[in-house]
């Protein structure tokens, strides 16, 4: 039997916007921008291909998107829509193989190695998946097929929207050779500039560098990238993976220097992260805070927590300390965010008769109350300050960026 791995990476095209177009066919063929209404502050989360053709880009401020594409339909986004469509994706993928790794709402890796004998070819599976997803959701997906996850991922991004790119076994290096270096995972803007200074623009050039050079340039990560450039990646498709990071962030309706509001928001975001961690029975060991000022200058920092936590108040304690350390300017604040990383399952040593046990009991009671009466049924008193700024519904404050409100 052929021992070659066959990995498929499936990525939805302009996911949020495509879902909105699927849910409301009147939007099909029109430029759609998901992120907020055109009068709101904030940025574009996703633009449909029609909007992209008119110059709208992800991350662009909404007012600029409106300027470049006045006829666009601006939508706040609805997490319920995306979750529902993502569940349909999952159902479809799992019909073809049980080895599916869902990396986000809209992309996934499928390991077809063990199931391929059931189908005519990997391309046939890709075409069937594309058809099924399209007919059930109206969302188009791009698919990459290769011998490992990195090749499949790069391939899926090459022929968007709606493309299928298959890289035959043994041709990984040829496939990668002429692609720009920033197609490789791990090469961001800084790394690209570093390589540009060395006149290394293509992956083929990078693959020819001695491994030691990459190690000197980028440390441990350099070796990983060097292997990717040679088409090597042994990472498995894992059915259940822990998220690398969970983050919650929001912009303020108007820039503020009111620390009660800012800290109340931080606390609220920490509560939401704590809830998410406990729902998934996870803990985190690192917490990060970011601030964007009214002049768009941006600062972020993170710190390792003294012990693994999933309790909102503890997360907020750490977030507040980081925030106080980070906020050195007296400028008004536009945007705050909290993220947690180094996430693992709840498996720490339990202690007898300590505060942690009390807290866990309290958390489980709070979670039960929220399950029954909604997230807002019980809140830390400090976050009530936000009532002055945001509308409330049973499941939370309606923050400024609804697409990010989970």
């Amino acid at each position, binding site marked *: 039997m052929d021992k070659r791995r066959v990995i498929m990476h499936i990525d939805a095209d302009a996911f949020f916007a495509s879902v909105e177009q699927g849910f*409301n*066919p009147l939007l099909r063929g029109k430029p759609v921008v998901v992120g907020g209404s055109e009068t709101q502050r904030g940025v574009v989360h996703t633009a449909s291909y029609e909007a992209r053709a008119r110059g709208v880009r992800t991350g662009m401020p909404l007012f600029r998107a409106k300027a470049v594409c006045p006829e666009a339909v601006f*939508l706040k986004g609805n997490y319920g829509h995306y979750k*529902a469509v993502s569940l349909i994706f999952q159902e479809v993928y799992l019909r073809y193989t049980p080895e599916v790794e869902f990396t986000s709402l809209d992309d996934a890796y499928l390991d077809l190695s063990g199931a391929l004998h059931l189908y005519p070819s990997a391309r046939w599976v890709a075409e069937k998946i594309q058809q099924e997803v399209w007919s059930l959701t109206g969302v188009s997906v791009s698919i990459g097929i290769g011998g490992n996850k990195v090749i499949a991922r790069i391939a899926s991004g090459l022929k968007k929207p709606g493309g299928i790119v298959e890289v035959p076994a043994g041709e990984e290096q040829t496939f990668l050779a002429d692609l720009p270096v920033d197609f490789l995972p791990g090469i961001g803007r800084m790394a690209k500039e570093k390589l540009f200074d060395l006149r290394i623009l293509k992956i083929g050039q990078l693959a020819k560098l001695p491994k030691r050079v990459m190690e000197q340039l980028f440390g441990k990560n350099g070796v990983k990238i060097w292997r990717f450039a040679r088409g090597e990646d042994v990472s498995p498709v894992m059915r259940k993976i822990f998220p690398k990071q969970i983050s919650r962030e929001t912009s303020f309706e108007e820039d503020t220097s009111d620390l009660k509001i800012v800290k109340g928001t931080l606390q609220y975001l920490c509560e939401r992260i704590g809830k998410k961690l406990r729902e998934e029975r996870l803990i985190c060991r690192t917490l990060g805070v970011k601030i964007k000022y009214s002049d768009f200058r941006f600062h972020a920092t993170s710190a390792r927590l003294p012990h693994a936590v999933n309790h909102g108040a503890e997360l907020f304690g750490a977030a507040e300390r980081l925030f106080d350390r980070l906020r050195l300017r007296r400028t008004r604040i536009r945007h705050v965010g909290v993220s947690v990383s180094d996430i693992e399952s709840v498996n720490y040593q339990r202690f007898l008769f300590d505060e942690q046990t009390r807290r866990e009991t309290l958390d489980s009671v709070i979670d039960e109350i929220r*399950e029954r009466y909604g997230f807002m*049924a019980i809140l830390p008193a400090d976050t009530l300050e936000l009532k002055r700024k945001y509308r409330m519904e*049973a499941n939370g404050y309606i923050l400024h960026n609804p697409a990010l409100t989970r």
Partner: protein
Amino acid sequence: MIFEDIFEPIEVITHFKDGQMRPVRFKWNGRVYKVFQLNGHWVSNQGYNRQHHFSVIADTSDYFELLFDGFNFDWQIARVCLDG
């Protein structure tokens, strides 16, 4: 294109089959609309209340979002989309 939040109670004729439900006709503002196309269905939770949202196109070619509250067993017209 304008979206307008409505959230008004409506009467709906619903078809239940194979554990699925779908609105067939609804009456709003004294007018009966036939559901021409069901674009999608999603669920949200309000505490223990499970709310089913249906994105539909009516026979008048208008877009509506209908909302069924699983706790109260009532239907609402959540929002409409006015093309233009």
